[in-house]
């Protein structure tokens, strides 16, 4: 039923905290009305941390779940990795129902197919960088020599080979998170969870780590679920964004969808702060047509076109996509929104 290109799929997923969360979902045959149930749960002293989440994550895409603290994004990612049990709904990973696998199978799936990076790094303080990266392989029972060789390769990948004997306490925040990234990648997982990986870092380092993350992804082509509370980070990294508020997903779409067509006022208030010319790309505004002149790359940001616009160009052909053009008016409309909204 699930198509080839979908790696993780969830339908009507619920996670409720409270005295007796199971009580509300003993309703085989009934259709749940999410709005009504959320209201009722709150009234009766429960917290619907994730309510009725439905989405698919495609192979090789960066799927960003974004929301403020308390919106349920961290809970959602813990449901997806089964660190938390879900109350209700379907969770399929490569066509298997993840909510029903046994503990042993789940461990096996985590060992081979999943990796996760944590906001507070989650490094073992008593192990060196190398031993931390090698830990997942050690838990699988890999022998010392091959696992250390693999861990060294991972540390090289995150450019930390020179610090392999350092304990976490001797590393900076950015370096610790590189170790965390290397560790999560050591077993070569297919699905890569990153739970606010850069939120604990300084802004400059954060930017640097984002670039590095994009470089790694170009090289490795993982399927990624990335959690953040930072709309700029989401727009920079995402193929698609799911925006959460109060446990519910209120919009799913590409960064351009979210920025240009916000589903409601809440989303709009979020995106108002974003400089669109630095977040919208040529491909987001491309439309059918024909034009002359030097072409522009589809992933180029609008702000790179400012010089050309100033010289009075009206149309830009899109590189590698014959029959697609970018109209200067469309760009100017976006730029006007930046000026007005800012």
């Amino acid at each position, binding site marked *: 039923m699930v198509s080839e290109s979908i790696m993780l799929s969830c339908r009507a997923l619920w996670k409720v905290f409270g005295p007796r969360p199971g009580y509300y979902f003993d309703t085989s045959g009934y259709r749940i009305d999410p709005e009504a149930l959320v209201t009722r749960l709150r009234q009766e002293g429960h917290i619907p941390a994730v309510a009725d989440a439905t989405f698919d994550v495609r192979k090789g895409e960066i799927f960003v779940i974004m929301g403020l603290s308390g919106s349920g994004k961290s809970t959602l990612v813990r449901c997806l990795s089964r660190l938390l049990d879900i109350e209700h709904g379907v969770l399929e990973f490569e066509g298997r129902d993840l909510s029903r696998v046994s503990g042993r199978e789940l461990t096996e799936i985590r060992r081979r197919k999943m990796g*996760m990076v944590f906001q507070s790094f989650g490094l073992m303080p008593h192990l060196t960088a190398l031993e931390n990266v090698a*830990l997942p392989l050690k838990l699988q029972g890999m022998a010392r020599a091959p696992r250390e060789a693999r861990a060294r390769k991972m540390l090289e990948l995150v450019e930390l080979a020179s610090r392999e004997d350092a304990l976490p306490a001797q590393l900076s925040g950015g370096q610790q998170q590189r170790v965390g990234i290397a560790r999560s990648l050591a077993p070569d997982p297919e699905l890569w*969870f990153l739970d606010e990986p850069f939120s604990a870092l300084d802004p400059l380092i954060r930017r640097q780590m984002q670039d590095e993350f994009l470089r790694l992804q170009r090289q490795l082509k993982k399927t990624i679920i990335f959690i953040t509370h930072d709309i700029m980070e989401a727009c920079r990294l995402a193929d698609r964004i799911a925006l959460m508020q109060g446990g519910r997903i209120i919009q799913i779409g590409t960064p351009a969808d979210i920025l240009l067509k916000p589903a409601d006022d809440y989303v709009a208030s979020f995106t108002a702060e974003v400089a669109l010319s630095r977040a919208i790309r040529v491909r987001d505004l491309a439309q059918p047509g024909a034009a002359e002149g030097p072409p522009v790359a589809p992933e180029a940001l609008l702000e790179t076109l400012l010089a050309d616009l100033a010289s009075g160009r009206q149309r830009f052909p899109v590189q590698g996509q014959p029959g697609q053009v970018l109209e200067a008016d469309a760009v100017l409309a976006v730029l006007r929104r930046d000026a007005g909204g800012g």
Partner: protein
Amino acid sequence: MARFSRSERLWAVLLAVSALMVVLAHQMPVLRGFPTALTLPLSEALNAVITPVFEALRPIGRLLSTMIEAPLAAIRAGLAWAPWPATVLGLAMLALYAGGRRLAVFALLALGVVALMGYWPKAMNTLALVLISVPLAVGIGFALGALGHLVPKARAGLIFLLDVMQTWPAFGYLIPLLLMFGFGPAAGLAASVIFSIPPMVRNTMLGLDEVPPAIVESALMAGARPGQLFWQAKVPVAMPQLMVGVNQTTMASLSMVIIIAIIGGFNDIGWEVLSAMRAAELGRSLGAGLVIVLIAVLLDRITRGFAGRRRGVAPRWLGPGLMAALVLALLLPGEALLPDEEGQRWLRRLDAWLLGFVAWSAPVFAVLRNAITYGVMLPMRLGFSGAASPMVWGFALSAPVTLTYIAVSLGGVVALGCRAPWRGIGFGFAALVFWTGLPGFPWPGVFLLMGFATWRAGGAGLFALAMGALLLAGVSGLWQPMMQSIYLCAVAVLISFAIGATLGVIAAESDRFSALLRPVSDTLQTMPQFVFLIPALMLFRVGEFTALIAIVLYAVVPPIRYVEHGLRSARADLTEAAVQMGATPWQLLWQVKLPLARGSVRLGLNQTIMAALSMLVIAALVGTRELGQQVYVALSRADAGAGLIAGAVIAAIALVADRLLRAPVA
């Protein structure tokens, strides 16, 4: 009356009822002490049950004791065989590994002193007991702590069990253990293990619970099975806390091993102190006490060194040092090397000098003794009504005196009560207690007040515990000793908290004083309880006052620690704001820092009470008239029932005091 809250009105009524009882008690003696008509032969009944049960357990006890005694004998033989320079060198190398060069030098000096004073074999016997008791306590404690961590349902019961184990005086359960194991080291070891398990359990639970969730989640996501999660993630991350547990368990174990010497038969250092004290040989008991302190400090620093260690390379001299120790052990003739009687003879000569000093300083200490006895102890024990006699204070309790007292009390209650009702009520109770003395307070009043306080602070459970303990004490004829215990403990807490809190305040203000005080309180806290008796006994002879001094010495450290910590951790932005507003240092202390440090100060008071109560039983050895003495007497008569009952009352008092002080203020 609208401005009185409900609880204030309640307490005001209680005050009135108590006052009525105090007045009536002068006419009706039945109100004064728990009526003897209501006592039951509980301890005989208990004995009738306990004795056969524990005697039936004797085969198990025998089995266990042979299992313990074989390795004990082996360790003891090993330590006796090894020539002392080799053992000293080996322990110094251990100290070098755990705490660096300074600790190694300390180990060399301390153990050298032990050997030269002629206490080597006895010290090694004590060490052998510790070396058996610690691994047992650590192992059992770790298992129980892991259980409490992994099975949340078991936790509440486990914590209550730990509280009981820590507050129940060991002498109290020593008799059943003796019934089960028979006389010998096994019974003492069992008591020591029981006493030293709780810190390990608590630290294990704390360490495992506080493993950051990110660590647990990252281990799970790395594919850890439950066993791997526990042993490869949680335990190593919790290791520093576990080592704190090992440290505390070691110290508790040493303390108990020394006290348990009272049952005798192992020729260890505790026995040495005890026999020297009984023979009134001051020099010998002081020397043996010094040995205990040195061993305690050394064990504490070594285990603490391991707790604070991060991974690292072993010091350079470790290998050669250990080799040298081994070579020494093989080459030197063992026991022949022990120094002759020189050290002991020297200590005997110290006796005479000490006796001289005691005689010379007696007038000074007599002043102190009289001041505290007549100023604090007697009024608290006999009350104003008892102390106001020509014998004690030099004037009789005539009608004008009584009327003045009543007038001052009422005036105080009204004057203070108008400003803040709580102060008036508090003053009223203080005036009542000061009139009757703590032990003489009418017993129905004690039931009433404790009942209300426990019910409001801790609900039905605490209420049942407190009422049960009071009833148990009354029915088994222990009412008077119990009130004596509460009185002695209250006086000791009053004095140690006053001294300790003052020192803590000074230490918080002055870094130099703090640096000066820290090693002193470190050492006081490391010393086994038993040792505190030695100087107190030397200076003040047998009696309640000596017990008081020993208790105060032992209980003075917690308030120093907690008050200093609380004041020092007062938030900097708040104190800066107060200074900016123009607060003088005095105002800053009283109006900003102390209120901010309230939680810490209260915890300090709690710990002071716990320390005083736990010292009560030890202090009974120098002659008191309270529950600790009852436990001790029961032990010497091998009366298991009486010992258990008195121990249970002490444990219950400690638990109730602890819960009352932890509860939020009404």
